[in-house]
């Protein structure tokens, strides 16, 4: 699905517009404080910009202007958001974390959800850790689980905010490769400081300035 958006948050100096073609990955780059994460939060529905719009295919995520206020809550956006912190639910096992978003994807039965979750964990190379709680996972294992959780929920758009920044250097190349593979054909916006991430994952780059 095509993403067309324009986000204005004056107090953070953000006035950014861009379009992402269906199935492509756009990298938002730029110095700290340029508002990259602010833009992702707005598209995800975690932050309400002062004005602007975002349309994902036929769906309006938000359309805010004087006299116009259309706002779709985060839960109805079908937008997957992966942050630097994997934010796994600490009281649930890895597979239950992944299964959490499968209700939206229309998997009705719990047993079936767990089966699909294990399939995704397998695909991320952490299938053998399905029964572990997040505190029993390393940073890399947790981030793989978080990637599985986002993709399993069947989002129409994937937002990645520095997905590799918090990981040990030795696992970064593996997970970057994994992301390259699983994001193929998905409309994605990536925020990253690292040229290696941008080069490997993005089809286009939009540079923000302060």
């Amino acid at each position, binding site marked *: 699905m095509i993403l067309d958006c324009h986000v204005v948050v004056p107090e953070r100096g953000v006035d950014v517009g861009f379009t992402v073609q269906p199935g492509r990955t756009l990298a938002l780059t730029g110095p700290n404080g340029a508002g990259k994460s602010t833009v992702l939060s707005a598209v*995800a*529905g*975690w932050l309400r910009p002062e004005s602007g719009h975002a349309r994902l295919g036929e769906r309006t995520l938000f359309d805010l202007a004087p006299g116009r206020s259309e706002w779709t*809550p*985060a*839960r*109805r*956006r*079908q*937008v*997957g*958001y992966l*942050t630097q*912190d994997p*934010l796994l*639910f*600490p*009281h649930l096992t890895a597979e239950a974390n992944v299964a*959490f*978003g499968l*209700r*939206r*994807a229309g998997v009705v039965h719990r047993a079936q959800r767990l089966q699909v979750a294990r399939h995704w964990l397998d695909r991320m190379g952490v299938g053998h*850790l399905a029964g572990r709680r997040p505190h*029993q996972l*390393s*940073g*890399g*294992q947790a981030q793989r689980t978080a990637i599985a*959780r*986002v993709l399993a*929920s069947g989002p129409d758009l994937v937002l990645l905010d520095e997905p590799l920044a918090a990981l*040990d250097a030795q696992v970064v190349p593996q997970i970057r490769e994994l992301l390259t593979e699983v994001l193929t054909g998905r409309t994605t916006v990536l925020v990253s400081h690292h040229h290696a991430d941008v080069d490997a994952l993005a089809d286009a780059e939009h540079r923000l300035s302060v």
Partner: protein
Amino acid sequence: MASASRSPAAARRQTSIDRTVRVRPPAGLTVVGVLGGVALLVPFAALVAGVDLARLPELLTSASALDALGLSVRTALTATAICLLLGTPLALVLTRLDFPGRNLARALVLLPLVVPPVVGGIALTEAFGRRGLIGEHLHVLGIEIAFTSTAVVMAQVFVSLPFLVVALEGALLTRGEAHERTALSLGASPLRTFLTVTLPLLVPGLVSGLVLTFARALGEFGATITFAGSLQGTTRTLPLQVYLERETDPEAAVALSLVLVVVALAVITVAYGRRGLSGAGVAR
């Protein structure tokens, strides 16, 4: 297998010994600090020393003592349950809902914690007493609250609810909202998010908050005697019984006080035990 897949950082944390050099208080302050601790503990030591062990079983099993104990446990448990049902939504409203005057509301919730309990009792009487603001209408309907066990529970809820709300507010603010936002982005409804993410994450705060709430309810005296009176088996809870026995049988008062101290110790153990009672655990 388990250890092989742990991150090096996690392994380091497990075996870490705290070698940081602590900034110690000056020697003089240490002495005064120890004196402060002694001032807190001496009365309890005296209480334990004052218990007549030979008469203890008889004192604790008298009809009036058992009535008071039973009533106290029943009412304090009921009050704690009501605090859970009222306090959890209240804490959520005060931390997660933006509304004008929110800071004022958060301060006002602390009022019962700060006013003398007897004032709380007067306030409850003005509201729910026979000639009170709400009580006179209830009286017309044949409902009497003052001087019943219901009044005991209401007094306990009034004074102990802030304990739970404060504990939950702290837990909610420390935890932040990122996990809940993640759940919403995964398509969960607000109710499902509350039940499957917010509540489970709140459990540690709930446990310590409920334990403190129960302890406060169990020890409630001033509001109870003012609003509910002191009728054996109906409104005379353990603290009221202690106060009454002080006049007639001081040894019984000491024995019953010991019961309340033991319960309080158990409460502290549950509330703070998980954090570890060792010095190192607290220091970190």
